[in-house]
C-alpha cells in the first residue's frame, strides 16, 4: 500500500495496574487502517478488542501502562501525523477525541446523558470541536438526524434519549458521532443490542456513510456475520494478541488460525441445519495467568507440547496477505527485519 495509513498501530502493549499486580490486556498488536477502509476487530469478551480501540483515543483509565516501543500514529489526510501515545495535555487529546476520531458504543442509552436533550448534546460537542455558532450547529445536527433516517428530526432534536426506541438511539448516536466529520469512526459492538431487522438497517446506514464521507471504520464485534457484511479486512484477537489478519473473504473462507476456525464452527449456520455446533473447548483463561508461548494453546486441538506452550508463534504470511500467528500455519515465516 502506497497510501499513508490513517492510523498505524505498532507493537502496542497495554497493561493495567491493579491490586493484583500488572495485568496484560493487549500484547504486541500491530495493524494499519487506510482512509475509507472498514477493519473488523473480532474476538470473545476479554480478548482486548475494546481496550485496543480505546487506546486509539487514549480513553483507557489512569491505571493504564503503555508498553515501551508501543506506537499509535494518526495521520488524517492532509494533516501532520499525530503521535497519539505522546499526547500529554487534555487540550491536545481533544483534537483526537471527537475530532479526528469518533466512537459509537454498544449501549446507546448509556452514552447519552439522560437529563439533557439529544439535540443539546449534539450541539455541545459540535461547539467544542468546531467554530460553529449555536444556530449552525443546530441546523447541522437536525440535518444529520435526518440523514441517519430519523423521522421528524426537528421534533426529535428536542427530545430526550429515553423517548427514542433502541434503533433510533443508535441512529442518533451515529448522527452525533459523524456530525464532526471524523476521519476515523470506532464502532464498538454498535448492533449487538439491536434486533436483526434494525441491525440490517444500521449496517446499511454505516456502509452508505463510509462511501459518502470516505472515513475509516474500526468495527468491533463478536459477530462474524456482521463482519462479513461490513468489513474489508478483519483482525481476530485472542487474549490480547492478534492471531489472524486478512481480507474478510480470505479469513472467513480459508481461516488459517485454529481459533478463527473455532469461531466459525461455533456459529449456527442457516444453510446447514444439521451441522453440529462446535464450541471452542474450555474457557478463555484469566488475564491474571496468561498462558506462556502461544496464548491459545490451552484450548487448541493442534497444540504440541514443547512448542506451543513455550514459543510465541511468529506471523506467517500467505500469498494473499493473510497473516497468521500459528506454528502450524501453511505459510512461511517472514523475517521481521528486512532481508
Amino acid at each position, binding site marked *: 500500500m502506497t497510501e499513508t495509513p490513517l492510523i498505524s498501530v505498532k507493537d502496542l502493549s497495554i497493561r493495567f495496574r491493579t491490586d493484583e499486580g500488572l495485568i496484560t490486556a493487549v500484547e504486541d498488536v500491530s495493524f494499519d487502517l487506510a482512509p475509507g477502509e472498514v477493519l473488523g476487530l473480532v474476538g470473545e469478551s476479554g480478548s482486548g478488542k475494546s481496550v485496543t480501540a480505546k487506546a486509539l483515543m487514549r480513553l483507557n483509565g489512569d491505571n493504564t501502562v503503555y508498553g515501551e516501543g508501543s506506537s499509535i500514529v494518526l495521520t488524517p489526510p492532509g494533516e501532520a501525523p499525530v503521535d497519539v501515545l505522546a499526547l500529554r495535555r487534555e487540550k491536545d487529546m481533544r483534537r483526537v477525541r471527537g475530532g479526528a476520531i469518533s466512537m459509537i458504543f454498544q449501549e446507546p442509552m448509556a452514552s447519552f446523558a439522560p437529563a439533557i436533550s439529544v439535540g443539546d448534546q449534539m450541539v455541545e460537542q459540535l461547539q467544542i470541536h468546531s467554530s460553529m455558532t449555536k444556530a449552525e450547529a443546530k441546523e447541522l445536527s437536525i440535518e444529520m438526524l435526518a440523514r441517519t433516517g430519523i423521522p421528524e428530526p426537528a421534533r426529535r432534536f428536542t427530545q430526550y434519549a429515553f423517548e427514542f426506541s433502541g434503533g433510533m438511539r443508535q441512529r442518533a448516536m451515529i448522527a452525533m458521532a459523524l456530525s464532526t466529520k471524523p476521519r476515523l469512526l470506532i464502532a464498538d459492538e454498535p448492533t449487538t443490542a439491536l434486533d436483526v*431487522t434494525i441491525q440490517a438497517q444500521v449496517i446499511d446506514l454505516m456502509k452508505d456513510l463510509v462511501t459518502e464521507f470516505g472515513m475509516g471504520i474500526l468495527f468491533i464485534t463478536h459477530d462474524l456475520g456482521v463482519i462479513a457484511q461490513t468489513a474489508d479486512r478483519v483482525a481476530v484477537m485472542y487474549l490480547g494478541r492478534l492471531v489472524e489478519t486478512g481480507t474478510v473473504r480470505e479469513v472467513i473462507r480459508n481461516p488459517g488460525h485454529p481459533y478463527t476456525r473455532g469461531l466459525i464452527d461455533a456459529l449456527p449456520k442457516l444453510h446447514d441445519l444439521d451441522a453440529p455446533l462446535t464450541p471452542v473447548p474450555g474457557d478463555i483463561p484469566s488475564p491474571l495467568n496468561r498462558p506462556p508461548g502461544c496464548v491459545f494453546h490451552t484450548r487448541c486441538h493442534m497444540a504440541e507440547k514443547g512448542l506451543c506452550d513455550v514459543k510465541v508463534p511468529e506471523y506467517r504470511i500467505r500469498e494473499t496477505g493473510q497473516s497468521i500467528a500459528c506454528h502450524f500455519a501453511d505459510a512461511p515465516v517472514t523475517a521481521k527485519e528486512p532481508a
Partner: protein
Amino acid sequence: MTDPVISARDLTVSYTLGRGLLGAKTQLHAVDGISLDIEKGSFFGLVGESGSGKTTLGRALLKAAPITGGSVEYRDEEVSHDLRDLSGAALKDYRKRAQLIFQDPYAALSPRMTVRDIIAEPLEVMGLTKSRAETDERVREIAGRCRLNLEHLRRFPHAFSGGQRQRISIARALVSGPRFIVADESVAALDVSIQADVLNLLRAIQQDMGISFLFISHDLSVVAHTCDHVAVMYLGRLVETAPTRSLFARPLHPYTSALLSAIPSLDPDETSQADKLEGEIPSPTAPPPGCKFHTRCRFARDACKRDVPQLRELAPGHRVACHFTEEFDFSRAPAVAPRRADATA
C-alpha cells in the same frame, strides 16, 4: 403426535395504562389471543423483535404474568393445571414443575450466595428435600449434569465467566425437577463459542431428561439449530408457526421472510437486499388495525388494513396468518437459499 405439555387457547395478557386525555383507559394487549401447543419433550422456539410480546407470553405460560383472557392448560404424567385459576398449593406445585432461565447470567445470580446455595435455594424454599444431606446430594447431581464440579460449588458467582454463570442458572432451574422450562434469550448475552456450548447443554437436557422447552430468542439462526418447532410473533400475535425445517425451507409470512433475510450472511458475497424491513415495530398501545404487520409489509393491500388474518394450516403443522400468502414465494429469499457449491471450495 404426543400430548402437549402446554396448551394455550386465545391467551390474552393485557395491561391497563394510565388514563388518556379524554379519561379513557388505554389497554395494552401484550399478548393478543394466542393459541399454541407445546408438545411433550419438544424444543419450541419463539422468535420476534423486541416489543413483540415474546417475553410476556413466556411469563404467562409460567403464570408470572396476568392471564386476562383465554386459557392455558399444563399437563404432565402426574397432574394437570388450569393456569388461569391457579393459586395456593396448586400454584406451588406448578412452580416446581415449570421454571425459567433468564437472559443475563450476570444479573440473575445473587453475588452474596455461594453457587451451592444458589442452586439449593429452590429446594429449600419449596421444601422439596428433608435434610441437608439430601439437598447436597441433589445439588451435586444437578451441578454435575451442568458440568460444574465440587470446587465450583464453594465459590461465589463473581469468580465465573459468562458461560459458567449461565450453567449455574440452568442448574438452579433444573434442581426442582421441572417438566417445562422457559429459556428467555438464554444465550443472547454470550460469546459465540460459549453460546454453542450452552445450546448443546440445553439440547442434551431436553433429550436426556425429557423436559419441554420454550426457547425465546431473537436470533433465528440459533432457533433454526436448536428447536423442533418455531412460532413467530409480531405485536402480540402469532404470524406463523411450523416445524423448524418447514419454516426455514419455505417461510409463508412476509415478516418471517424479512426476519430471515435480515440475518447477516457469513458469505461476504451474499448480500440480501430484497426483503429488508423498513421502519420499526409500532407501539403496542396503538397497534395498526387489520393485519398488524401491514404498515411494514411491502405486499400489503387494502384488505390487510381492514381484516385481521387468522392462522391457516397450509402444510402439515405449518400455519400462517396472512391473507395473500399463496400469491408469493419467499422460498427464493437469498438468506435461506442453499449455499452455492463454490462458496467454500
